[in-house]
């Protein structure tokens, strides 16, 4: 291949040039190319990172929005916490059902009106913790799906928002079959508009989620919580600051679990 053969077709004549063979050795070229490939492979990224878009209220508006209180039955408060060891690393734990390991992000949650202010004396026990039977706090994890079944906190949020999800699933079916518009683009845009309409449909029972991150809660757990909002098509949620009431709730919960 790397030879160039020169042959004279005119037969052997006296004084004709000798048949020449030029052989080019490509080995150094290959060596150099390999080096360059290695360089490019090490110095580049193939994966482009993704983004999660969020909109937070500006700080001035926060006071106003706190005035329009949510309906008691609709609210779910999630308090996030992450367990860390004494060195500060996030503790990993194994899920009993699937055997997979997850970082230990704990989601404490309660349904109903968010606790605010101070508690009446009859709510507290002798150590000033909230009485075990008054405390509605429960504990869950971020566990995703197994075999199409929602697990952990996702199952709870899924249940709370099932009216919306049912409608969106029906719409998704139509979208997959491209029945919403003539072209692919029209199909997509109609789907997006209709999905938004369903998410914001006030005639359906929709939850309001309040996400609070504890002092140890990692950034990852907050992102996981925001993911759950997206996956469960929840349109009304807010990220709130944790306060002493929330801490008291968790302490009381840990006491009922005998962990304190």
């Amino acid at each position, binding site marked *: 291949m790397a030879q160039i053969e020169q042959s004279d077709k005119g037969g052997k004549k006296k004084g004709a040039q000798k048949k020449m063979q030029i052989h080019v050795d*490509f080995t150094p070229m290959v060596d150099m*190319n390999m080096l360059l490939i290695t360089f*490019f492979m090490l110095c580049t990224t193939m994966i*482009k990172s993704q983004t999660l878009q969020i909109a937070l209220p*500006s*700080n001035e508006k926060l006071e106003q929005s706190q005035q329009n209180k949510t309906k008691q039955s609709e609210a779910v408060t999630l308090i996030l916490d992450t367990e860390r060891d004494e060195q500060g690393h996030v503790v990993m734990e194994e899920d009993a059902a699937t055997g997979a390991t997850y*970082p230990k992000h704990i989601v404490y949650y309660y349904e109903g009106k968010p606790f605010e202010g101070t508690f009446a004396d009859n709510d507290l026990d002798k150590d000033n913790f909230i009485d075990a039977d008054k405390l509605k706090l429960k504990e869950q994890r971020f566990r995703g799906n197994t075999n199409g079944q929602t697990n952990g906190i996702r199952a709870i949020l899924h249940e709370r928002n099932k009216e919306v999800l049912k409608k969106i699933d029906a719409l998704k079916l139509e979208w997959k079959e491209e029945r919403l518009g003539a072209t692919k683009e029209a199909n997509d845009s109609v789907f997006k508009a209709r999905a938004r309409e369903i998410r914001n449909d006030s005639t359906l029972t929709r939850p309001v989620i309040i996400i609070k991150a504890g002092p140890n809660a990692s950034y*990852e757990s907050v992102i996981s919580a925001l993911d759950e909002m997206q996956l469960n098509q929840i349109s009304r949620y807010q990220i709130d600051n944790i306060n002493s009431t929330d801490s008291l709730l968790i302490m009381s919960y840990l006491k009922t679990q005998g962990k304190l």
Partner: protein
Amino acid sequence: MGKPKIKRKSTLIDMTAMSDVTVLLLTFFMLTSTFLAKEPATVITPSSVSDIKVPMSNLVTILVSGAEAKSDGSLNRTVEGKVFIGITGDEDSAYSSEKVRRDLLIEANRLYNERHPEAKVNFTADQVTAFSKLGMFGMPMKDLPAFLSLPTTEQDKIMKEFDPNKVGIPINDNRDLTKLNEFQIWMDAMQRVAQDYRNNGTVNGKGEAIAPNPRFFEAIKKTGEGIAIKGDKDTPYSVMHVVLDNLQTLKLNKFSLMTALKSENE
């Protein structure tokens, strides 16, 4: 007895085909890849199901460093929460990264000097040029001129040492618009520069007038695609919250968080 004669075979392997293949591979890598940006701190972003891509242009990246493992395995918390800013300009070469960075430095410096009349900081033209070549920066304003005068290798060395007292843009939980901290000054300067680009193509009516470009303004103020926050997954949210809260104070309340892709089932 005579030795049997072994016929000498040529061991020459033809490398042409191999060379063809490597050139093809090389072309592929050169065309598909984007270079890793030089970042002062390595972070592992949390994963999310969101699949929106990071834009290639008009992007302000805010990097928040995470804790670092020490040799004994414990975490060094003092290097956590240091803030760095990286800027990518528009595809339009009139609004290149270099120009945006240059305009930003001048504007931020003006705002800084307005607020700190007792300790004004001034940049030479060479320092501004050096700044426009920095992919990501994170320094207190008062240390920036000296840093920019250093050769690139020295700059890298300082960034690598990562002395918590020397690197990172100073930030606190200020919510008062009259007492902006340095991070807020930088972000405020960004807003002003973007606004000027949209209105008349110059900053503060200075410099050559070029065709206005609203894209930077839209990216950072309207859609929020232009502000990407990159943090480590194990960093406590309270650390990230300070950055988000600072942006909220400046009414930059739409932004994106950089994540890695994961499937719905995880």
